[in-house]
């Protein structure tokens, strides 16, 4: 009973807020371009769902491609850095500088480099940049996280560097990698949306483009509809990755 209540609680709150919002709009008669009622947003959601789904897919696919590239590059670089403490010292300040620079600030530059005809490359590159760091720092931390006594045993057994990385440090870093990918995936979506805004209209017809397009036309209900889809997409992806992380941990720990 309590569990059912707990499961229903968020939906009840959402319904309540929607009712208040709808009633507020109707009573005050606020213009639809300023604040459309939820019913208008619902209409915007169901009219032309095809293009909305397409836009969502465009954003999602950019984020997923970016996540894959970020994952591969972060792992590769982290492995080299893990093998050489000197390299780590060399990379660290550069990495943290890039990490704290907001992606919107880099966007115009990357757009120029990608070329006017290929805004999608710029959007992917920017999403990669954002998704890279949580995976990279997770991998660097994870590769150093092996039990020091296990490291000593590897010394004792005369393991070479490759054996040490493949058989000890990489498997030991799995929990950190799972966490890094979960955070990285969420950031990849944010990165993709922000980069789409940076790229402006036309190039990539994702959710951000739809929000910009609707905003230019003062179609506020369409803007909110796109935001709703973006929110649902983010929550679904997060839930999926959370599941994956837990399944991964169960496999790793054997329990």
């Amino acid at each position: 009973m309590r569990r059912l209540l707990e499961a229903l609680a968020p939906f009840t709150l959402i319904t309540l807020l929607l009712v208040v919002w709808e009633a507020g709009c109707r009573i005050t008669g606020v213009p639809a371009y300023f604040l459309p009622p939820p019913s208008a947003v619902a209409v915007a959601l169901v009219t032309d769902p095809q293009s909305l789904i397409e836009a969502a897919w465009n954003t999602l696919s950019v984020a997923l491609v970016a996540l894959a590239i970020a994952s591969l590059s972060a792992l590769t670089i982290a492995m080299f850095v893990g093998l050489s403490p000197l390299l780590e010292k060399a990379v660290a300040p550069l990495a943290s500088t890039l990490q704290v620079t907001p992606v919107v600030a880099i966007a115009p530059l990357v757009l120029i480099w990608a070329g006017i005809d290929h805004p999608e490359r710029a959007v992917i590159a920017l999403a990669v940049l954002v998704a890279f760091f949580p995976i990279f720092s997770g991998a660097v931390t994870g590769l150093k996280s092996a039990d020091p006594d296990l490291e000593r045993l590897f010394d004792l057994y005369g393991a070479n560097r490759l054996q040490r990385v493949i058989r000890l440090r990489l498997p030991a870093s799995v929990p950190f990698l799972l966490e890094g990918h979960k955070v990285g995936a969420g950031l990849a979506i944010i990165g993709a949306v922000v980069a789409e805004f940076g790229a402006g209209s036309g190039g990539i017809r994702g959710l951000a483009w739809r929000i910009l397009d609707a905003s230019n036309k003062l179609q506020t209900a369409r803007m909110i509809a796109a935001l709703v889809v973006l929110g649902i997409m983010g929550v679904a992806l997060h839930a999926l990755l959370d599941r994956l992380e837990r399944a991964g941990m169960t496999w790793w720990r054997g329990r």
Partner: protein
Amino acid sequence: MSVAVLDRVEVDYPGRGRALGPFSLNLASGGITALVGPSGCGKSTALRLLAGLEGPTRGTVQRAAGRGETSVVFQAATLAPWLTAEANVALPLELSGMPRAEARAKAVAALGRVGLKGAERARPAQLSGGMAMRASLARALVTEPRLLLLDEPFAALDEITRRTLADDVLDLWAQTRPAIVFVTHNVEEAVYMADRVVVISRGPGTIAGEIRIDAPLPRPAGFRVTATFREASEAVSSLLAKGSEVAA
């Protein structure tokens, strides 16, 4: 014949000063030596010197046991959580280049010897503390070492489990007779398991004295209530007390 010799070794740690020494120890092959001392006396440092995991600041270390002939068991089981018990035990063999199938077969046999038959596929998280320690022992024994080093191996276990494990270690020792060195701060455990108890004084560790225990190994039943056991325990305790006084 000696398996390992520490000759007037001293170990200094930066920022901590002298941890051990001057310290000399000659390990006969097939003997069981206990290093007993208060915490911080450098017993684990001595063990790492014997394992070749660390070098002395001064003095010399001679080790007859070559690569793969020395095994270490730590205070915690130190198993890789992502590997099954069998894969954990096979690891030292696989790292030294033994074909996988052969290594796995030896690992299964070693697990059987420590009483873990049937737990081959279990992950460390599924094993109890005592079982994990047994798996760790199996991993140490699978290479058939000439020198087996145990660093407070039972410290984290309950009294009943540690007593059973002590007997099991002695039975396993009787099969291949490696030289065993183990570190402990438990006087009774030292006297029960070792034929030679070396007492180390409060840090920086030097030898406060040495007691030989003249009784058969593995121990006969009821050894803990014999006069030999009690007298040896008393002797070790008084040496320990004296060793602690010197520095205090």
